[in-house]
């Protein structure tokens, strides 16, 4: 038995952990690659990072890395900052403490307490990227603990569901921004990504080395899109995320009658078909944009269907 409220908290805890991981990695990679860029290129690249991470445009000077990192990391009023993501993840975890192992809870709680006690000034003087790499390592450790110390029961499948819906959306959005298409609210986009920007995009998704193994170091935007969207074996590809999402969906709410499961299954099947048979080669950039926007939308529909079927359902109707 899994309480609907508990499933809700686990799902969101996992989404926020995924978001925190994505945020830390993007900032770390960005800080590390800055030294190789001209100030103009670095500013353009920061603009893409902000567009990918912030729900709404932030009032920032894109040339100011200090200010940007502060806003994306420590600003508690920015709901998509790293500190906010960790706070939301931890708040959700605290409400389902009894569902988590001691390892998972304490690791997350320690991370939360740590980021509470650090300021941008503490990290900025010496190698700020190092701070984000440390956070990232802790988050990878947390992933491992979630995998290896929790029973893979229904609660764990809700964690999987949250993680991979979030991942599919984050990667799709990131790709969309690199293919030169305006994100909502971002009217003026920076110039076309340059050679280094494509490498940075791969590194944002831990994909540089895996990509080179498949396609050699020949950097081509279409191949990068192909890889990040459709590679079946790479954990940060959209297709991989969709497969894991479907596995999780098949295992949550085992006692729910088929009629209540139908919509979730149909929607996730449709999304799977899109990423299983998609092809980038013959797409224009407008078509790529439309495709990516559609994937994000389909993920939102799946989220809504899960809530309607398993979490926010009308109790009177099922008595």
């Amino acid at each position, binding site marked *: 038995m899994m309480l609907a409220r508990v499933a809700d908290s686990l799902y969101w805890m996992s989404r926020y952990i995924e978001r925190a991981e994505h945020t830390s990695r993007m900032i770390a990679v960005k800080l590390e690659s800055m030294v190789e860029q001209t100030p103009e290129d670095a500013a353009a690249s920061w603009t893409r990072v902000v567009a990918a991470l912030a729900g709404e445009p932030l009032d920032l000077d894109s040339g100011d890395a200090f200010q940007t990192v502060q806003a994306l990391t420590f600003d508690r009023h920015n709901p998509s900052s790293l500190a906010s993501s960790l706070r939301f993840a931890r*708040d959700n975890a605290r*409400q389902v403490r009894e569902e988590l192992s*001691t390892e998972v*809870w304490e690791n997350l709680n320690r991370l939360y307490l740590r980021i509470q006690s650090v300021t941008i000034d503490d990290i900025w003087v010496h190698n700020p990227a190092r701070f984000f790499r440390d956070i990232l390592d802790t988050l990878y450790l947390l992933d491992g603990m979630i995998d290896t110390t929790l029973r893979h029961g229904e609660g764990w499948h809700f964690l999987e569901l949250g993680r991979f819906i979030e991942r599919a959306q984050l990667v799709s959005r990131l790709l969309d921004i690199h293919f030169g298409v305006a994100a909502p609210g971002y009217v003026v986009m920076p110039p076309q990504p340059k050679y280094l920007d494509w490498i940075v995009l791969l590194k944002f998704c831990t994909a540089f080395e895996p990509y080179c193994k498949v396609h050699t170091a020949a950097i081509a935007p279409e191949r990068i899109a192909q890889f990040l969207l459709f590679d079946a074996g790479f954990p940060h590809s959209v297709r991989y995320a969709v497969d894991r999402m479907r596995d999780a969906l098949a295992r949550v709410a085992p*006692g729910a009658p088929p009629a209540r499961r139908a919509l979730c299954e149909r929607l996730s099947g449709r999304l799977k078909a899109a990423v299983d048979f998609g092809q980038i080669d013959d797409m224009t950039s407008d078509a790529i944009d439309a495709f990516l926007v559609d994937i994000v939308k389909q993920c939102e529909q799946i989220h809504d269907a899960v809530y309607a079927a398993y979490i926010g359902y009308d109790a009177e109707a099922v008595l």
Partner: protein
Amino acid sequence: MQQGVLPHTEDFGGLEAGSLPAGAHVDARPGRDAPYKAYDLGKAFDEMFAPDGVVRAPYQALHARLATLDAEELKRRQQACEQSFLHQGITFTVYHDTKATERIIPTDLLPRIVTAQDWERVERGLKQRVQALNLFLADIYSEGRVLKDGIVPRKLIYGSKHYRREMRGLAVPHGAYVNVCGTDLIRNESGNFVVLEDNLRVPSGVSYMLANRDVVRRAFPGVFRAAQVRAIEHYPQQLLATLKSLAPFHEDVSIAVLTPGVFNSAYFEHTFLARQMGVELVEGRDLLVNDNMVYARTTSGLKRIDVIYRRVDDDFIDSLIFREDSTLGVAGLFNAYRAGNVIIANALGTGVADDKAVYAYVPRLIRYYLAEEPILENVETFLCREPRQLSHVLENLDKLVVKAVGESGGYGMLVGPHATAAEIVSFAEKLKADPENYIAQPTIQLSTAPTFVEGGVEARHVDLRPFILHSDETRIVPGGLTRVALKRGSLVVNSSQGGGSKDTWVLSQ
């Protein structure tokens, strides 16, 4: 890492008593030698030192061990312990202005030790007391013999805000109203354990008892092993057995802990107990009542709930019957309870028996229901509702502790010897205006126990809250929560007022 050593174990080297390093000061005296230089032996019974400064037998190993540690080392251990609590999230939330801060309840590393002999009497006394209290509750919610016989004044019961008329004529399993009881004991000047109060509604603190054991055992592994301390870790299993025994009607009993939610100061304890028992932790909004059955909203649909270990007060548990503004409970729960479709532990209406005025009658209740003499005495108590006792109280306000009958947590009380003249005058007015609402007790010097304070070990006042489980049988794990008043000289041990806690070691022989 060596096998079998926990990575976060930072012990002192696990020295056994008797194998002390050279230079250890084994006869360190209070008020004279480090680390006991600032240790005052006052009027109170001291757990570690006899009045002449000689170490009492059960404390000898700990005393010797402490004499070999410098204050820096103790401080480092204390900080490590606080970190551990913070990381585990064993915190309570303090609200001031609009900001909520999470704080730990300070745990003092030095254990409080109870001998096997003392414990044996305490255990018998508590069982006796809980049995009498349950018989009393069964009586006042049915025939009311005790009232007809004039043992307890009718008005005291029927006038109590905790008396639940709705409970009259309702049978509870095994006649057990109080399934979890936390009784506060103190040691008086002569070292005898006496009862200060009973907590029969939703007593808390048991998770601290277990968490303290966990850290203190790691801080003093050598002394712990040598002392042969009795285990307390089976409390969750005992609680589960107690809850199961309340629902004999089928095998696959579904049990839930009902919490007011994450903002409650005891939330950690609720999650802890649910996790340790392997049962669901539910909030009011997870449950609904249909056709007098209680269901939980699960992802797969609705699931029946048979037993609710509730950590929500009577007033908030069902907005249809009690406080209608409550969002913490479950509308319709009481009717399901009345219909016998769900068991609630503790039963509703138990608060009438832990009223501070009823407390004064408990020794008489033990004699009345069990025809036995009370094994554990009460603290001498004056009922201000009786005119002769009231005038005695008014004349001696500077010597007495006066408590409001319906309050808990140390609120609404006057500690005479520590009060200013102005405070006494204003309290006397309150008392005269509403005497039935107050009781008074002599200021009892709660016993003192060695407590780590910055720079050394000092005497601080302590009490003891053991937890008694009661259904078809009565179960007590050997130990309890020792609360300690961390302020020098303070007698108030409540966590809301600067109290901390200690691990309690009941020795097996």
